[in-house]
């Protein structure tokens, strides 16, 4: 379907996903990307300062 319309998805989701294999571990690229993104967001949430506001302890 991708490419048939100007507003088609950037990534073609109508094909089987590529897989990464390492010994007995096998994971699809989309799942691997989501896990990496979750780790990135988790670390960013710890490091990026929260907007200051007057609060009582």
């Amino acid at each position: 379907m991708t490419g048939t319309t100007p507003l088609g998805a950037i990534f073609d989701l109508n094909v089987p996903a590529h897989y990464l294999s390492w010994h007995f571990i096998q994971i699809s690229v989309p799942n691997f990307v989501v896990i990496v993104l979750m780790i990135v967001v988790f670390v960013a949430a710890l490091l990026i300062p929260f907007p200051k506001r007057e609060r009582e302890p």
Partner: protein
Amino acid sequence: MSAPAHRPAKAERTMWTTRVRERAVREMPPEKLLPDRQPSYVSSWIYVFGVVTIAAFAVVVASGVILGLKGPEWWHLTGLGHFVNSMHLWAVEIFFFAMVVHLWGKFFMGAWRGGRSRTWVTGAITFLVAIGAAFTGYVSQQNFDSQWIAFEAKDGLNAVGIGSFFNVANFGQMYTWHVILLPTVVVLLIVGHVLLVRRTGVVPPYAARLAKAPPAATATAAGAATGAEDA
């Protein structure tokens, strides 16, 4: 506001409605249920992922209600149906994404401390039930993808010994689990989880600065911190 203004007479206290009301107010006083301030340590982005999860869940439910009312033909064959279907899917993606980050944050801050074990357990059970809710959604799509997932899952469920309880290739059965039973359980668990958070408060961070204090002060502060956490 933590105690009722009117103390019922002994005869009135035998009524179950009176007992339930008094216990509800005692266990969950309004100032705890809807607080007007939060401790300073919640000023961190890691504390927002719980409410992000709930916000995503609200979109999941709203889009799911529309999909359920319009039906499979609508969500497969119309432009608006595709849009709402996609919104349902991506809200679920954000729901699980935020819930996992929330889980990691609470795990590393030991969120079960200070009498908060039930809060941790209800959150963990919510996560597991939500996986079942998402799975039954995948097999309720009414397309080749759902057929493939159902027949792969059938072998998986048989392998763990619970295959006789569920027929994952039965659309009606899976749809009932997906739109009625499991969402109800998830909603009840989330309500209980949030009420427990309101009751015990957000878990304080580990006392990381105690190690830098003088020995005497460290012992005193550590004792106080332990007492506070165990309360």
